[in-house]
């Protein structure tokens, strides 16, 4: 069967919630100031863990969900609140106040509403009797039930696809949404990713000795000692060009995904799957490595990830590598897990529109594997194409390429 004609995909709105701030403007100011956002986690116990800090989002105090009954508000997870804020900003940027005309939502999350699952577990261990509120915990622990709260908020009914590919969830959700438009199946898809900090996940990364004891992640530093976790949400509205109803911020031009079979949690040292996704996404975008004006790397700050990614970028870019600016914004806000790929894609949009490059912070001595132009301070730049990498547990790799729209 012949492939359907491929569509140009416009990004007409984007929203971001990160530890650096709520919304595009706050994040842009924080990135321009090379600010970091790590502090002690105070909503679960970190006693006994190596690390106790993370990138924490300050959510507004007021109820965000207007259509959720008061007695159900407490079952709306922090991550879902962040996602709602990001969706509202993306819609507003596209000149919309609701989801009318949106064919589908594709949302990535690694942990979903994990804190509700934790609460269900703790309650069940405390009390062997039937506790009626357990039904609400069991119900709202399911990420699709959390998404129902968002659908209800907008009075919208449509398919919500929840992609859970660990730390590549957000990027895969955006890429998947793009494929739905490219195939002609949809005209308009809201896509992104989110995750909130959760005790189980925090302790999990701690158990792997993946968290930086100092709480300061130093991606691509020669003596980096781990990552910092964070939380947040990133969302973008993708529209088929011929159906576009508002001005485009940029185009989503390339997406590729591949699976690294090396190990459940460790990347292939040569980054072979990463090479394939960068190559595939750039082929789809019709650009060669030297045209890429910025790479927002996966750049976690763990010893294994950064050397594998640096090696992969060097192999993929060849002679062009020394001129390609690369940074890891995880150095400023932490690793947002299922939200990382989406938030970092939105940062690429911001960089394309603002013509600047965010920095990799906290570097003391650059790792010898780094052959690219590691951006260590916020700087102005001229860029047409940006690329972002996401690599997850389980070996899921994804790369997105975006192109600036001229005013």
């Amino acid at each position, binding site marked *: 069967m012949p492939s359907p004609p491929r569509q140009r995909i416009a990004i007409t709105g984007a929203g971001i919630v990160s530890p650096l701030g709520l919304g595009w403007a706050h994040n842009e100011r924080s990135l321009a100031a090379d600010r970091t956002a790590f502090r002690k986690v105070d909503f679960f116990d970190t006693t006994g863990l190596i690390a106790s800090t993370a990138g924490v989002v300050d959510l507004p105090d007021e109820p965000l969900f207007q259509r959720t009954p008061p007695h159900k508000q407490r079952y709306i997870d922090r991550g879902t609140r962040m996602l709602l804020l990001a969706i509202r900003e993306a819609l507003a940027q596209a000149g919309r106040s609701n989801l009318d005309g949106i064919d589908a939502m594709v949302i990535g999350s690694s942990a979903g509403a994990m804190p509700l699952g934790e609460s269900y577990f703790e309650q069940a261990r405390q009390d062997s*009797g039937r506790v009626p509120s357990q039904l609400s915990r069991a119900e709202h622990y399911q990420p699709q039930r959390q998404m129902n709260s968002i659908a209800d908020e907008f009075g919208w009914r449509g398919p919500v696809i929840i992609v859970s590919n660990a730390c590549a969830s957000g990027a895969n959700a955006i890429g998947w949404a793009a494929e739905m438009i490219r195939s002609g199946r949809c005209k308009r898809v809201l896509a992104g990713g989110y995750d909130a900090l959760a005790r189980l996940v925090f302790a999990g990364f701690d158990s792997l000795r993946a968290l930086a004891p100092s709480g300061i992640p130093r991606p691509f530093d020669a003596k980096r000692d781990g990552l910092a976790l964070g939380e947040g949400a990133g969302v973008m509205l993708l529209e088929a060009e011929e159906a576009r109803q508002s001005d485009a911020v940029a185009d989503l031009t390339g997406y590729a*995904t591949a699976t690294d079979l090396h190990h459940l949690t460790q990347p292939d040292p040569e980054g072979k799957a990463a090479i394939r996704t960068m190559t595939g996404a750039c082929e789809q975008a019709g650009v060669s490595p030297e045209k890429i004006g910025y790479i927002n790397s996966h750049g976690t700050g763990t010893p294994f990830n950064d050397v594998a990614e640096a090696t992969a970028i060097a192999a993929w870019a060849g002679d062009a590598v020394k001129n390609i600016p690369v940074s890891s914004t995880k150095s400023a806000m932490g690793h947002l897990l299922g939200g990382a790929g989406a938030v970092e894609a939105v940062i690429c949009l911001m960089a394309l529109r603002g013509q600047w490059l965010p920095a990799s912070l906290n570097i003391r001595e650059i790792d010898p594997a780094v052959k690219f132009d590691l951006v260590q301070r916020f700087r102005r730049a001229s860029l047409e194409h940006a690329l972002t990498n996401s690599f997850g547990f389980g070996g899921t790799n994804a790369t997105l390429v975006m192109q600036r729209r001229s005013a």
Partner: protein
Amino acid sequence: MNVEGIHIRGVGAVSAAGWSGADLLRVVREGMPLPTSNCVRPGDERPWPCATRLVPPPPPEKAARHPRLRRASAITRYSVAAAVEAMTDAGHDPAAPPKGLGILFTMMNGCVNYTGRFYQEVLQNPAQASPLIFPETVFNAPASHIASFLGVDGAVSTLVGSSNTIMEAFDAAACWLRTGLVDECLLIAAEECDWLSAEALTYYHPKLVASEGAAALLLSLKGEGPQVKNVIGPLCYTTWDERTALLPDLVRQTTARIDSASILIDDQCGIPRIDRPEACAWSETAFQAVRSPKKILGESMGAGSALNLALGVLETRDTRRPAVVSMPGTNTAAYACVITPA
């Protein structure tokens, strides 16, 4: 949803009925609910009944060997067995799968046994929580293990959702196949049971019986095999009342395209209060036979609709009759489809 032209080339199933699609077909056709066992609460007595129907121990030939599977969760082992059966059924050697194979994995709760065990360790002493267990709690761990087992290094993705999220995966697979991202696609839906998920079901209704299992379908634009046609849905809802209100429309749209020679695979579990909307919706349509797998097997959550689809394919192959599969779902969307013989 347009899944026209896609052939189901292979089927595999692991369920409370046993470790094969043949076991599933035989036990559901016999029509006798499988015996239940009381779900044990570790270290504690539960003052209310909580019944389960679990997957029996595997026969020796179904125990796959691979370094990644040494400590893999039950959900992974069920999924590998179902995937291997589907691959073999399609004429592929699972040890040498075709190039261009993709995997779409769906679930509701995921790796609950390891998740509960790890969180218990975190509560007891987080400094001693096991680094070997944590990675196995991640939703996409089973898909990763299957990819490693089969050597699939291309598109592999995990979706989380309702009991019928397999249909979202079907839609995605159609997209992947048509855009050339993959040449063939393995759809897998799976669930494993633990005391927490079994108890959770009793909060929905005390007589709900928790079950588990996996179903796998190998899809291709080429070759031969039954096809899924006339997919109705997603008809989206967020409340039970909305679900109840739209099921008649789901049935109306489906029955406009079938005849009485068809076999209905419904989603009824045998509890009238839960079944009523679906039962009422289908009540005026005549079928050659009606199968209700959940009445026999129990509620296998994220694997539920996939097991029904697998059963539909097996019925269609065996009887040469179309199978109508009703998938009203639990909290997001309703689907129905017709599976036609090759």
